[in-house]
């Protein structure tokens, strides 16, 4: 009898939970285990932790990284939230340009941006410093990228798109009714925005805050280019030492473990902050969104948007363009220094670029689809309390992001070269690694999106006799659909940039662009590096814009009613 009343969808939930455990727990557990293993004998030991934390230098690096992460996440709020609000809720002109620039920012590999910023704000010869000296006649320019502030700026430039996309998709769901209620009660635009609109996006902002924080901590490329010459010790640059010969993989694993604790702490804080408030924005009552009329302020807003995107995209792009079309970028800009040879080389003469481009997009697309599907399902399970210990699942889904890719790659390698899954040498090892690695972004996004949907909509289906799966298919799915394209990009783009785990997992026949790019940066070959970067940025932006046009949704300006 019980069987008949049992909602059969429960098996689906259990299956999904099993998939999550397989994808995340399998590699992570192997990593945790190796942190307690003696390097040579494999016996249980705590020595790795002593080696990892027995020196003040190593502890200091970790502290620096945490401070850096917080600073980066804070700057992301300052950059991302106003832009998201301007694009989503106001009549600001030039939205398409701003959005395309943010997309371009997101696609640009951060180490390419970092090299560009060295050229822009290097203390000795940075273009901005030279321009300043030329204008003012001063003996030295004010900018120095090799400082903590410079490091925060560069990392924030390449993380704020998370804040933008998360906040924007939350803003897109909030109907104007609540704002109108505030206006009726006499509140002005500013007050309404600060007290009503933005607080409603708090869960999304916090999710993005966590993502930006975690990414800043786990990043290696930018610190290697800026923190090292700036003499700033960071966790990832310290971690790299453990891979120097003789590699102490177990110590590296031990060194990364406290990050899991930091992630747990952030979650707990997030839960505390948003636990007792309601953030349901999307109810069954439709609701329309109207643009806030900014008047002449819309030009101020546009100026701010262009300022931020200049820092993150337009200025670095000038540097990249100069190098991509230069015979020798060290000679600076001049007509006789122009050439198409770099582009020709990377597109035509180096067949591996084409193969790698294809792999990059296919693997990125596959892992984005997998991660998004799984993340939505898990978020749904957690929110509707479909299985016990749901909160633990949400922690599991977020955990992979905080472990630096180079360490995580060890776990992936161990997980996928021994049963039950032997995938080494196939594309699947990369796809599953990317899926696991970026599951947290998909999860954070899905989580915030689901929080906004009132369960009463599904309850209505169930009261009318429909099962949960029907409710999902006919109600929740369509409601989420609008945000899905954005969520897909959020995983797809980082997956196309992912380097640190790819470098250990690729084999002949499964090369990806990020590895090629890194090679060029490692070889000091800035002309080719810029040429590949340029192709990557322009190609992906075009692909994304065409994709949106193809599905017939002008996601920028037109809004279909929920």
């Amino acid at each position, binding site marked *: 009898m019980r069987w008949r009343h049992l909602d059969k969808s429960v098996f689906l939930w259990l299956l999904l939970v099993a998939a999550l455990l397989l994808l995340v727990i399998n590699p992570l557990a192997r990593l945790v285990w190796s942190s307690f293993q003696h390097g040579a004998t494999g016996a249980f030991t705590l020595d790795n932790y002593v080696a990892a934390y027995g020196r003040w*230098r190593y502890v200091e690096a970790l502290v620096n990284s945490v401070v850096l992460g917080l600073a980066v996440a804070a700057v992301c709020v300052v950059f991302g939230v106003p832009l998201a609000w301007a694009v989503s809720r106001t009549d600001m002109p030039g939205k398409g340009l701003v959005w395309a620039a943010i997309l371009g920012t997101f696609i640009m590999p951060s180490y390419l941006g970092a*090299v560009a910023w*060295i*050229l822009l704000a*290097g*203390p*000795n*010869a*940075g273009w901005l410093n030279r321009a300043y000296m030329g204008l003012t006649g001063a003996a030295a320019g004010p900018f120095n990228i*090799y400082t903590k502030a410079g490091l925060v700026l560069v990392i924030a430039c390449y993380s704020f798109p998370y804040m933008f996309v998360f906040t924007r998709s939350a803003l897109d769901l909030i109907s104007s009714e609540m704002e109108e209620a505030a206006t009726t009660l006499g509140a002005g635009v500013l007050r309404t925005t600060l007290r009503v609109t933005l607080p409603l996006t708090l869960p999304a902002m916090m999710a993005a805050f966590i993502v930006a924080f975690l990414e800043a901590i786990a990043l290696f490329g930018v610190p*290697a*280019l800026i923190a*090292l*010459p700036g*003499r*700033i*010790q960071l966790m990832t640059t310290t971690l*790299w*030492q453990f*891979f*120097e*010969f*003789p*590699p102490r*993989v177990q110590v590296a694993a031990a060194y990364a473990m406290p990050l899991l604790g930091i992630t747990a702490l952030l979650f707990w804080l997030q839960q505390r902050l948003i636990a007792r408030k309601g953030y349901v924005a999307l109810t069954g009552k439709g609701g329309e969104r109207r643009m806030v009329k900014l008047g002449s302020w819309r030009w101020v807003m546009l100026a701010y948007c262009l300022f931020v995107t200049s820092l993150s995209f337009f200025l670095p792009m000038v540097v990249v363009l100069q190098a991509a079309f230069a*015979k*020798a*970028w*060290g*000679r600076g800009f001049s007509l006789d*220094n122009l050439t198409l040879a770099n582009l020709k080389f990377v597109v035509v003469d*180096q067949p*591996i670029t084409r193969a790698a481009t294809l792999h990059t997009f296919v693997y990125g697309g596959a892992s984005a689809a997998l991660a998004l599907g799984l993340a939505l399902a898990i978020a749904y399970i957690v929110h509707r309390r479909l299985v016990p210990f749901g909160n633990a699942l949400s922690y599991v889904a977020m955990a992979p992001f905080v472990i630096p890719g180079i360490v995580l790659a*060890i776990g992936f*390698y*161990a997980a996928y*070269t*021994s049963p039950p899954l032997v995938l*080494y*040498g196939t594309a699947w090892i990369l796809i599953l690694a990317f899926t696991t690695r970026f599951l947290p972004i998909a999860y954070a996004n899905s989580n915030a999106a689901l929080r906004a949907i009132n369960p009463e909509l599904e309850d209505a289906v169930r009261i009318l006799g429909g099962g949960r799966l029907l409710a999902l298919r006919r109600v929740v799915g369509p409601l989420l659909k609008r945000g899905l394209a954005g969520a897909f990009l959020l995983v797809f783009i980082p997956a196309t940039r992912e380097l640190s785990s790819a*470098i*250990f997992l*690729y*084999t*002949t*026949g499964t090369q990806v662009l990020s590895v*090629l790019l890194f*090679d*060029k940066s*490692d*070889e*000091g*070959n*800035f*002309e080719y590096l810029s040429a590949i970067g340029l192709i990557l940025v322009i190609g992906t932006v075009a692909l994304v814009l065409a994709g949106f046009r193809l599905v017939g949704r002008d996601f920028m300006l037109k809004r279909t009613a929920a």
Partner: protein
Amino acid sequence: MDIARSSIKWIVLTPLLFLACAAPASAFEGEQTLYEAAKKEKELTWYTAHYGSETAAAVCNGFEKKYPGIKCNYIRTTAQVAYQRLAQDQKAGLAVASVFSSTDASHYGRLKQDGWLQPYRTKNVAELIDAFKPYNDPDDMFVATAAGLVLITYNTSVVAAKDAPKKWTDLLDPKWKDHVSIGHPSFSGYVGTWVVQMRKSYGWDYFKKLELNKPRIGRSINDTVTMLNAKESWVAAGPSATTLQSKDKGNPLALVYPEDGAILMVSPTGILKNAPAPNAAKLFEEYLLSRECNEIMVKQREESVNKSVKPLPGARSIAEIKTIRPTYEEIDKGIPEVKELFRDTFGI
């Protein structure tokens, strides 16, 4: 005029003709048998850190042209990543790579000790420049197949040739304050070896004095190329090959072979015991020493290890310049020590 032109033609052509005639003769004894056996294996995988990806690709292509029917797959990474990948393969019991080429000499001691290599006496070793022969393993587990130099590099648009540093101690001159670029021994074996050698030549004081010039510390030795091109730094302790590659494109860079000696980096290659393609691996190791392969390498501005292949204009042959190099033992023991000292002195 005519005579001059035609004699130039002959000066250019004669060596080419000579090469064309000489090439088949460079084949080693037993080449055909080895080739036949290798063909049955169809492909080989080569983990290499010896040069950049373009050179690795060119070397592989050259091999495929010389020995049709055998596919050459390269996985080009930095030395530590190459070792880490190999170690993971071995631990998981996977046989992926057949040939292993690292720039970190200490890897080979460990590989040999762990029994991961198989011996092979390269027939082409007669072609190897004599100065490199001492770096070959007496038990034939590995053989020197690549070389590089750490020397003084500078940006010619800000430093005139006559003002450029001539020896390593010139980098300590206060006139270079804030304008010296170096790499980090924790990230680069080239830099590590350079630091060990400087300590050997001038004591650790050298680096204490260098710190007064506040050098820009990058990660790999190739980062100095970027720093010089950006004019962020004017002089550097840099690599020969990458700097010359960038110079060839027209970037304003130049090399100084230091009077007190360029640091010679010798990088061996070994065949793995569990090589899936042992015969192709042996053939490949022969090829790495061959004239064809070294001609490809000098075109990419890598140093030649073959006696009869001379570098292109702008570079000098290793045989003609003063080089210095710590011994294997000094490198093995010295690198971990100098990493610590380096961190103490430079705070990073």
